């Protein structure tokens, strides 16, 4: 055992000695090209997966930041509204771990545009169905920065009467398939029908967010929506809670449960409140990302295999000479392993620097604009380190086997160039 360890130690030292000099004095262009290929491979491994898993992550992030907050309360299954809403809101506001909350009324609504025009007998009125949301504009903006998503007109203010903000999903001029209300502009009058109540409202602004919960909404101040929905008990439909820094959504949920608020409302963290299809998409994209990453890993391994094989086969004679003068074959194999690891390590390092100093900041500032989310590049240091480790392992194997194939060839045949 000791002899084996001693011999292995020598083999590694000699392998290292050979590898360092081979790299230092090798052709710079060849080495640069190999490192470039490794860098691209690592970028493929990390970035493609990062964008794929970033898409559902973008949806989840948008939902959390713009709609549900960290914790989301909705009515119990058997109820239409959150029971004892004013009490619940007061209780939540008193919790020190709660930074802000937004209570929303919600109801189905019908909205008509151009209703004042005389219609021909064969014309249909411009009507769409939407979701009416009553919000406290200031508190909502504090939670979700909703005012930053106004793309035309102005955001609501608390004292607005008969003013509304429409989601761009309701409007034909923002659609790609000519659906929605046509010819609606800021300042136009629309007819809003909620149950038996009808009001003429003025369009104050257009809203465009990626949060699914705001798709197709008509936003108005809460006091007016409460009246239109006949919520005489002030029964709220949604409460979105933002926690203070350092408090997890699970902690908030536990606190709410401890205060028995679960008797009045369904309490969910932002993740629990996600529609199941989004969770399914996130899981699917994660699998896709892993598959694509695995393919990238295989490609990287094949690349290294080919590079090392070509390198070794063109140096077959020198390998034979080394064996001829008594250098152990394992020492020669180690030298190729070290060279492979060098290429993979430097390539990964350069790619990692590019990812964290260029790509992530770029995608944060310029997310990919998908209809359902902002595509972000989701890369974590831990995940990157794992992928670097996988690449190194793949490279180690890919460098070892071709070297072994060539080293195992007959020594004399290698020296003399015989097949």
């Amino acid at each position, binding site marked *: 055992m000791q002899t084996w360890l*001693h011999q292995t130690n*020598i083999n590694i*030292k*000699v392998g290292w*000695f*050979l590898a360092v*000099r*081979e790299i*230092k*004095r*090798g052709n710079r262009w060849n080495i640069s090209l190999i490192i470039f290929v490794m860098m691209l491979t690592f970028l493929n491994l990390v970035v493609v997966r990062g964008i794929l898993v970033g898409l559902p992550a973008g949806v989840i992030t948008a939902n959390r930041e713009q709609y549900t907050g960290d914790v989301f309360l909705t009515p119990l299954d058997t109820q239409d509204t959150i029971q004892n809403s004013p009490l619940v809101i007061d209780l939540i506001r008193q919790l020190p771990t709660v930074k802000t909350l937004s209570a929303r009324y919600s109801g189905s609504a019908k909205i008509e545009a151009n209703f004042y025009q005389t219609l021909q007998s064969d014309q249909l009125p411009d009507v769409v169905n939407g979701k009416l949301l009553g919000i406290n504009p200031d508190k909502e903006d504090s939670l979700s920065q909703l005012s930053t998503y106004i793309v035309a007109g102005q955001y609501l203010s608390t004292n607005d009467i008969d003013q509304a903000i429409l989601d761009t999903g309701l409007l034909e001029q923002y659609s790609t398939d000519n659906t929605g209300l046509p010819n609606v502009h800021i300042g136009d009058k629309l007819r809003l029908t909620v149950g038996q109540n009808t009001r003429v409202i003025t369009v104050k602004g257009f809203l465009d967010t990626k949060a699914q919960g705001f798709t197709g909404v008509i936003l108005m101040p809460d006091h007016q929506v409460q009246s239109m929905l006949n919520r005489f008990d002030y029964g709220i439909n949604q409460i979105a809670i933002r926690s203070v820094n350092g408090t997890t959504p699970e902690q908030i949920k536990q606190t709410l449960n401890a205060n028995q608020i679960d008797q009045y409302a369904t309490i969910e963290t932002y993740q629990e409140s996600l529609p199941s299809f989004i969770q399914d998409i996130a899981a699917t994209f994660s699998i896709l990302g892993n598959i694509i990453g695995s393919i990238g890993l295989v490609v990287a391994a094949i690349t290294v295999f080919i590079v090392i094989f070509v390198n070794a086969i063109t140096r077959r*004679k*020198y390998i034979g*000479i*080394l*064996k*001829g*003068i*008594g*250098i*152990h*074959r394992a*020492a020669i194999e180690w030298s190729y392993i070290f060279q492979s690891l060098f290429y993979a390590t430097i390539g990964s390092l350069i790619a990692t620097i590019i990812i964290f100093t260029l790509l992530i900041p770029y995608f944060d500032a310029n997310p990919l604009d998908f209809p359902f989310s902002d595509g972000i590049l989701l890369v974590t240091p831990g995940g990157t380190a794992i992928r670097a480790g996988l690449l190194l392992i793949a490279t180690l194997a890919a460098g070892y086997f071709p070297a072994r194939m060539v080293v195992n060839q007959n*020594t*004399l045949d290698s*020296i003399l160039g015989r097949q």
Partner: protein
Amino acid sequence: MIKATNLTKTYHTGHLKLDVLKGLNMHVKTGEFVAITGKSGSGKSTLLYQLSCLDHPTSGEIYIDKTEITKLKRNQRSLFRLNTLGYVFQDYALLPSLSAIENVMIPLLMQGNSQEQARHQAVQALTQVGLADKLNNLPSQLSGGQQQRVSIARAIGNNPKVLFADEPTANLDSDTSLMLLESFKQLHDQGQTILMVTHEDEYAKQADRILTLQDGVFV
């Protein structure tokens, strides 16, 4: 030092059978300088490969310093070449990415010497062959004769019991060849056992004894 008994080597190429060495017997004493000559295709290099553990004879026995090398396993043969033999190849056989001193250090490192020890011994060997001022030169920066001398330094760096040289002057001009043979003579004078293959009778005469091969047998 070297004893070969009934040595044969046969190559099979498809249906063809080629007997290159036909039952050779030879003996080389310690400290002897022996030249093996013969025409091209006589089996000189083949004989050298068998004696130097680079190849395996078809039949026969070879003893080097009481070790029957024909019975050694692959890793044992490699170790034997490292610790006991030195080899000078026809075309210098230096590693292009290693400097002169690094080429000489490699087998010394493989023997388990530290880098400092290996370097010290390599400097001594290169000094012995007159290349003390070319330690850090790459092979591409050396002449043919200098490269061959580095090859000799590498071969003698580990103080081998036997030095094998396969056509060491083949790629050198006559002046350089004579200089090289002078190096061999100096080593011989210091007690080195040398077995040299050459097709040049003039160079063979520098040896203590000449063995001539013809059609696989000594004449």
